[in-house]
């Protein structure tokens, strides 16, 4: 576990500690005998090494993170191109405390406790004084259902409905998403594909694909829009641990629940753009307005 944490630290956004990934050509990759086994010679690697992503508002001290662009149309993986990812989204410090806060928030904000213990007023009876005040040598009581009595009411018990709703600060939620994405990339659990189109709607195909590529037992496929290609929808319908999700549904809990996260290129663009916009956004109303009429 400590090895994993140190691996996360090593992969953070600053350029000094990060070993430089050779952003090089086909020749240098194939010259290494071990690497050429991973990249089949018949792959389409040659055709789109120039696949460039435009990274918005790059800080001067940070270098982009890198990931493979893979395919889904064959069981065996084909590395199509190297993609550059923004370091503020995919290379941020692994804030485990922030991840915990997000997971806790997601677990609790919808929670509603409905259990209730009856108080002395809600129990039947208990209106009459059980025995006279004086003369019997017994303790003085006013009601059979007081909390002191066996089968009496509960004075400070659970009172329904009890809500656990709260909103985590917006910036913490943004940070949760960026941290979790960074963690997923650092731990080799993030894969980027061109699209979610698969050749058949056979369930076995997708199961074999995940098995061959040694993706985790559970996989979360994320596309930009909420209408998915027909084949993958049918193939994953009866598998509980392969789930399809639109980009707007991306959340920390789901990303941690599923071992592997698979993003389409469109989803990646959307997620990165939205997160960067909100990281750099100035939410102070006064500063937003370029033109302020005098009567404001």
């Amino acid at each position, binding site marked *: 576990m400590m090895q994993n944490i140190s691996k996360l630290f090593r992969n953070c*956004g*600053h350029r000094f*500690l990060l070993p430089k990934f050779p952003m090089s050509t086909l020749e240098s990759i194939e010259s290494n005998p071990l690497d050429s086994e991973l990249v089949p010679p018949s792959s389409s690697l040659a055709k789109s090494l120039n696949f460039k992503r435009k990274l918005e508002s790059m800080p001067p*001290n940070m270098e982009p993170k890198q990931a493979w662009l893979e395919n889904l149309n064959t069981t065996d993986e084909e590395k199509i191109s190297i993609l550059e990812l923004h370091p503020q989204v995919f290379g941020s*410090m692994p804030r485990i405390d922030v991840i915990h806060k997000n997971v806790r928030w997601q677990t609790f904000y919808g929670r509603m406790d409905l259990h209730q213990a009856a108080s002395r007023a809600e129990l039947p009876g208990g209106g009459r004084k059980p025995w006279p005040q004086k003369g019997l040598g017994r303790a003085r009581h006013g009601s059979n259902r007081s909390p002191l009595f066996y089968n009496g009411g509960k004075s400070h018990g659970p009172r329904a409905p009890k809500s656990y709703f709260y909103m985590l600060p917006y910036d913490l939620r943004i940070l949760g998403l960026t941290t979790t994405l960074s963690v997923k990339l650092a731990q080799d659990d993030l894969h980027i594909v061109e699209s979610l189109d698969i050749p058949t709607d056979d369930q076995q195909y997708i199961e074999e694909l995940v098995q061959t590529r040694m993706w985790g037992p559970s996989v979360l496929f994320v596309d930009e829009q909420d209408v998915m290609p027909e084949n993958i929808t049918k193939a994953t319908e009866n598998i509980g641990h392969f789930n399809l999700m639109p980009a707007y549904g991306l959340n920390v809990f789901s990303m941690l629940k599923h071992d592997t996260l698979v993003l389409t290129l469109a989803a990646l663009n959307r997620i990165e753009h939205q997160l960067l916009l909100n*990281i*750099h*956004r100035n939410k102070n109303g006064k*500063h937003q307005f370029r*033109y302020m009429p005098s009567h404001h």
Partner: protein
Amino acid sequence: MSLQVLGRTLAYAARRSALSVQPARNASYLGSTVVDPLKKYPDVEVSRDPAEWRFVERLLPMKTVPAPRSTTETLPSGWRPTNPKSLNEPYFIGRSRNHQPSVYLKIKERGFQKFTIVKFITGDIWRLKEDLSKRIEERLGLKHGIHVNEMYGKLVITGDVYNVVMEFYDEKGF
């Protein structure tokens, strides 16, 4: 109605509807002008012309503060862009979302508690702590406590050493 006035009106309406509506102040029922029949007012013309929309767009608020155009020269306001030589340091102090240096002075307890905070630090933060500690001792003759938060990339220095830190900051060119 000129295009500019039209644009301003539409932008104002868009902003106004997004903000909360203020109640009318110092107004009374009898003192207000009566609303005339609708026919008396000019017709509303709905336009979908992109040329006209441009005048609306340029008045809408900006979501992010764009990076200043100058990347080499200090602007008349005193704002200085990041010097590329600062990237050779073992650490880097990033800027805020408004492209301002991330060095802040925090004053609490009616002026008795003062901290200087440096944020958005990447790289060897421990080295930065030592360098700043030395610089503060040189300038002020006293050692100041520095708290390092590696996870946040933040340094908290006890005392008001803002000017010393800013001198160091400008020297390095972050």
